[in-house]
């Protein structure tokens, strides 16, 4: 039976069979893709999704970490306790302050630094490598080393240097505000090279005839920076700011190894609170509540950042 002689009825049957076959192929292809996706799904569900949902559940109980079946449902009690706990609030405050300030300062310095490092002068490769290398070692290690450098004792490196000018020992790490300043300064010092490198890569993608045209039109360096470089760099700034914010919110290593979150709780972080209340003192419920609130903070901050970046990109385009 050839295709031309098919009755209308047979044709619909053929169509149905065709659809079934297509569905079968579709299913087979999906299963095939699924085979490759299975490991990542497994890891993601076990190590990220399940713990994520668990932290919501734990946060509503007085779970102490031993036996979940004996944990009591306590409603929002942990959240109330948390907002009344000055230590936890100090951690939340410093974490947000750290994330916002490092993001701002690094962006303001790294962009002009990248523009300068992108110029062809003697030693530019050396300078780039030095700045970049600072962002390679572990922050925890750098924190330990800086403990000596900004030690409040007269024997600290900075204080010794200052003593040559008759300045008496500055209480770098023993004064809360100075300690916060030190943590942020060190973080900026250690991450600037990374972000400058990112910017350099983007700068090199800007077509050079844009600058040539501007020079012909008589635009000076500053005008070129404002009217060409900055608009061309908006996507790069978006990326860099996103990376700075997300890694800033995760801060733990540096303030912890530099000064243990002190003095007092001046440089205490959310991460440290969660580890100390949760794992350290077995208050899993309270620690989880903090984790949930912190997730919401991050979500809001990232969404705002994305919206702002998009709005700026639209205006620039």
């Amino acid at each position, binding site marked *: 039976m050839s295709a031309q002689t098919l009755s209308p009825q047979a044709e619909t049957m053929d169509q149905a069979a065709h659809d079934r076959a297509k569905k079968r192929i579709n299913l087979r292809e999906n299963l095939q893709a699924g085979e490759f996706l299975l*490991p990542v799904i497994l890891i993601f569900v076990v*190590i990220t999704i399940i713990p994520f949902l668990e932290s919501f559940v734990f946060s509503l109980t007085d779970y102490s970490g031993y036996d979940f079946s004996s944990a009591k449902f306590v409603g929002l009690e942990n959240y109330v306790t948390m907002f009344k706990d000055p230590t936890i609030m100090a951690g939340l405050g410093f974490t947000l302050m750290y994330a916002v300030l490092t993001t701002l300062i690094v962006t303001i310095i790294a962009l002009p630094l990248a523009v300068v490092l992108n110029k062809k002068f003697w030693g530019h490769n050396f300078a780039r490598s030095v700045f970049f290398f600072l962002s390679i*070692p572990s922050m925890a290690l750098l924190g330990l080393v800086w403990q000596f450098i900004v030690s409040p004792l007269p024997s600290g490196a900075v204080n010794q240097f200052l003593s040559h000018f008759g300045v008496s020992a500055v209480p770098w790490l023993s004064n809360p505000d100075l300690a916060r300043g030190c943590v942020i300064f060190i973080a900026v010092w250690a991450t600037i090279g990374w972000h400058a490198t990112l910017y350099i890569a983007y700068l090199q993608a800007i077509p050079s005839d844009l600058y040539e045209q501007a020079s012909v039109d008589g635009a000076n360096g500053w005008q070129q920076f404002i009217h060409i470089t900055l608009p061309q760099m908006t996507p790069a700034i978006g990326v860099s700011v996103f990376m700075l914010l997300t890694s800033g919110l995760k801060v733990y290593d540096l303030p912890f190894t530099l000064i243990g979150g002190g003095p007092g709780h001046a440089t205490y972080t959310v991460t440290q609170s969660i580890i100390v209340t949760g794992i350290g003192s077995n208050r899993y419920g309270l620690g989880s509540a903090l984790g949930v609130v912190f997730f919401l903070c991050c979500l809001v901050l990232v969404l705002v950042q994305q919206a702002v970046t998009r709005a700026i990109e639209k205006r620039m385009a």
Partner: protein
Amino acid sequence: MTLTARRRLHNAILSVVIILLALICAIPLWIIFINSFKTSGEMMKDPFGMPASFSLDNYRHAFASLPIGRAFLNTIIVTVLSVFIQVFVGSLAAYGMILKKSRFTAAIGTLLVLSFVIPGQTLIIPQYRMMADWGLVDHLASVICIYSAGAAFCYYLIVGYMRGLPQSLFEAARLDGAGPWRIYFQIVLPLIRPILITTIVFQTMSAWNDFMTANIYLSSVDKQTIVLQVFSAQGQFTTNWPLFMAVTTIALIPVFIFFLICQRWIVSGLVSGAVKG
């Protein structure tokens, strides 16, 4: 002054200023290195100057009193295994995603993006409990398991690169009758080598440098990674800064070599990872 002369002068000033700035930023590295040869007294008197002699006593002492070799071995085990898992699983997932465009794969893609929104801190407590249930606390395996979650990030980097490849390459192999696994191993893996290297370099850095996860899970001295070792050395030798600087120098040497070899891949990775961020 002619234009070229002015430009030359301008460049010379730029060189001096920027190189000076770079050197100032590098002073902490100098402090680590140079003080590792001094005695405590010498260092307290002048932390910036040259040592009286380049004595290796601190290094000998460091190796004698700390299981540094063991710490390096632990770090290598953790880094190699976790990076292998992450990159292998991530690249498999990326290929699966390319293999079939459907609502099913799109849904999984969306799910994986969630990993960028969930901060790691939120997971610390449930993850710790899970590792305790599995009996993995204070075993290197716990840290490897936690790092493996980075597979979602690797997937993200790799799938972006794969989408940029001509899909006809995969199509042609399929028409030649090659199964998906064969295509993955013989065609996909060689094709995506640049992004694989970048991803490996990135994940190696984050596993090698990690302090938080290692500090939560690994408490025995013989399980410590190198970063933890330096951390506990500092607690142990609070009064002996030069010895601590020697330990830090030892810990930084592999990082420095890694940097020299991998600098260009880190840079290209910054861009490729960033383009889609």
